[in-house]
């Protein structure tokens, strides 16, 4: 039997369906609004009662009521905020990211935050973001990290906005983060973001204590005393290196290639790789900088106490080699120290500790703070909402979760450190360096990627133990190549 459907019936059914869908979507919002509104009425009434009766018997009680009123007023104000922002990020950090979204929703019930995951590879993700920016599709909350040299380009290209006005309007206390991590986001006299991840970078030698015990070093001094001297370090590297013929059983040392590694080598004795303005290479004419480079050159090229690139094995990092007892010590920072500790599988082969680099004559700690930052898109329709969201991401709870559940190393807030140290005691060694570490010097022309490539490739040539080049020649060539990048017109 065939049932004919009239046009009127069809329209009715359509209307009913649409109404049903709308009705199904709507109640959530209404419910949330009600929940927020109710306590407001309740507490306001309470306050009125207190004032009318004037029975302020106990000051404590009055204070409590006033505080509650303020909180509720703020909550009421937040409930009035409406808008939608997009959070673009490149790494899934479950369950941290979901927790941040849910908890922000509780604070701002009428704000919608859309999370968009990019690609896990950070550099590939930046390529995608630039393309999205060109297409006008980049989100409101972003992460152009200074330590990956994308921050300055993003600022120069008007992708991100300075947040000084937002900080002032919100009356944000910037001292809740370590000053150096906040300073990483300062550029052209403005602040462009709040710290995301961060660690004290390339400020230590990650050490396998078992290897040192074997050569008679019974106990290392407390790292926080900066008591180990360079002479001791060199002696331990030499003594702990174990080789027979071509076969190396344990390397005494491994150096850190790349921009941060070379920068800190130059800083060990008081020099710099480039000037703070980011316009000139200075290391080639500075004996203090050359002293550090020459020391590594001798260890790597002349004495061959470090592995050739890849010699540890494909995918075998310094952390793993150190944890397996195949490497006594290597140049890195707090992140690597903790990773090496996690990589130890056999306590008889490795026990990880650190030697913080001896302080320089000027009292500074040779280091280069590593870190990222959350930023707000320049053309965000809701900059204050986006700002509140990045503040929420890097709040005490946000930062703690970013470490514990998101799997990142975000040592950017003094107030989370005690909690993290309770879990990973190794972090306590770095407290002073986190507060007083040295910041990065970036190329003034925002050509950070060319800069890092020039250092990595020419640095590899300088420290090439297989086909050595004379130290002076390697330094000269490296300086010339880096200077070429610094002389390139702005990106």
């Amino acid at each position, binding site marked *: 039997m065939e049932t004919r459907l009239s046009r009127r019936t069809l329209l009715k059914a359509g209307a009913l369906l649409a109404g049903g869908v709308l009705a199904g979507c709507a109640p959530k919002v209404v419910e949330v609004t009600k929940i927020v509104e109710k306590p407001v009425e309740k507490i306001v009434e309470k306050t009125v009662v207190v004032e009318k009766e004037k029975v302020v018997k106990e000051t404590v009680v009055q204070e409590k009521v006033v505080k509650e009123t303020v909180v509720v007023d703020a909550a009421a104000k937040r409930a009035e905020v409406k808008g939608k922002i997009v959070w673009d990020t490149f790494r899934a950090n479950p369950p941290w990211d979901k927790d941040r979204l849910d908890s922000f929703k509780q604070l701002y019930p009428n704000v919608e935050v859309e999370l968009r995951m990019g690609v896990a590879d950070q550099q590939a993700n930046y390529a995608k973001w*630039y393309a999205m920016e*060109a297409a006008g599709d980049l989100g409101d909350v972003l992460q152009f990290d200074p330590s990956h040299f994308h921050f300055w380009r993003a600022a120069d290209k008007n992708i991100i906005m300075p947040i000084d006005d937002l900080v002032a309007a919100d009356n944000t206390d910037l001292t809740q983060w370590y000053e150096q991590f906040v300073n990483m986001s300062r550029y052209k006299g403005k602040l462009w973001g709040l710290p995301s991840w961060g660690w004290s970078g390339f400020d230590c030698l990650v050490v396998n204590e078992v290897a040192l015990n074997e050569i008679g070093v019974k106990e290392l001094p407390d790292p926080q005393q900066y008591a180990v001297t360079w002479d001791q370090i060199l002696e331990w590297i030499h003594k702990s290196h174990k080789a027979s013929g071509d076969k190396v059983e344990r390397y005494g040392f491994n150096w850190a290639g790349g921009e941060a590694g070379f920068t800190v080598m130059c800083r060990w004795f008081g020099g710099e790789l480039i000037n703070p303005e980011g316009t000139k290479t200075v290391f080639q004419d500075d004996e203090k900088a050359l002293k550090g480079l020459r020391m590594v050159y001798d260890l790597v090229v002349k004495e061959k106490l470090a592995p050739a690139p890849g*010699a540890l*094995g494909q995918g075998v990092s310094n952390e793993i080699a150190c944890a397996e007892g195949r490497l006594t010590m290597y140049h890195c920072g707090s992140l690597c120290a903790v990773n090496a500790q996690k990589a130890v599988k056999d306590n008889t082969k490795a026990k990880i500790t650190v030697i913080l680099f001896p302080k320089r004559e000027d009292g500074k700690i040779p280091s280069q703070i590593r870190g990222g930052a959350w930023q707000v898109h320049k053309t965000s329709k809701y900059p204050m909402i986006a700002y509140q969201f990045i503040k929420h991401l890097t709040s005490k709870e946000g930062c703690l979760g970013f470490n514990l559940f998101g799997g990142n190393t975000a040592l950017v807030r003094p107030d989370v450190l005690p909690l993290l140290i309770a879990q990973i005691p190794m972090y306590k060694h770095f407290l002073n360096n986190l507060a007083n570490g040295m910041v990065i010097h970036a190329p003034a022309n925002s050509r950070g990627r060319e800069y890092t490539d020039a250092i990595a*490739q020419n640095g590899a040539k300088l420290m*090439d133990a297989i086909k050595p080049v004379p130290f002076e020649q390697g330094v000269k060539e490296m300086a010339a190549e880096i200077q070429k990048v610094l002389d390139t017109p702005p990106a």
Partner: protein
Amino acid sequence: MDSTITAQIAITRAKRRISPAVIRENVNGYLFLAPWLIGFFGLFLGPALASLYFSFTQYDVLSPSKWIGVGNYVKMFTADNLFYTSLARTLYFTGLSVPLGVFGSMVLAILLNMKLKGTVIYRTLFFMPSLVPLVSAVVLWLWLLNPDWGIVNNALRYIGIKPPAWFADRNWALPSLVMVGLWGSIGGTRMIIFLAGLQGIPEELYDAAAIDGANTWNRIRHVTIPLLSPTIFFNLVLAIIGALQAFQGAFVATEGGPAYATWFFGLHIYKHAFDYWNMGYASALAWFFAVVIIGLTILQQRLSTKWVFYYGA
């Protein structure tokens, strides 16, 4: 005269009138062609022409492009020393990998064309490495060629040879990439094409050569190679183009290092385009290289008249 004109007009009108069936057939035809046409114009020709325009501009993707004429082309010859470095590395790679690869595939095909027992198994075994993606092959070989404890160096040490550091050595990194490439390509499609070419050579030519007293070497030299020359030419052209575009191996294994030892032209283009965001300059590099490849292909085509023999042509 008039009747002739009238007849012609009638024919023309009849020709113009296209039946609905023909129209439908044409529409269907174009619909089937549409994916390819959209792909060709939208994803290939469009971007290619856009990149030609960008090659004359300063363009970083984030700002509007700025016309600078031949500035990028001048820059590559005068102010970019990595241009010459990358060009030299690429030509060295091509010069090493193409003759070894084409000759190796041909020899292997000749051997596998002999009607011996188990040939099919050998063909399969030799073909298998070509099924491994290059990236995986590179990672595998990084393990095998590990300077300290890789199986290759351990074997070399065992027989008393001081082994090189392979990818870690500035002089050996590029030959190492050639080696990995050959492992994957010698027994691959190139060998299959050679086999097909070999099987197209008429048996009677070999018989005639045998009757004339030609030994195996002479038969290969005077029958196989001349008759295989169109196949050699085809494989040579493709191999040169492929080698000039070398990128993946260096990108995965060495990132262009150590000390620019494997900084291929393809990597140089990639770096400028997607890492340094000099998209205009990268476009110019790409167009320069396209011209080089086209030029080399035309040159090979011209030279082929001197050595390629088309049987029966």
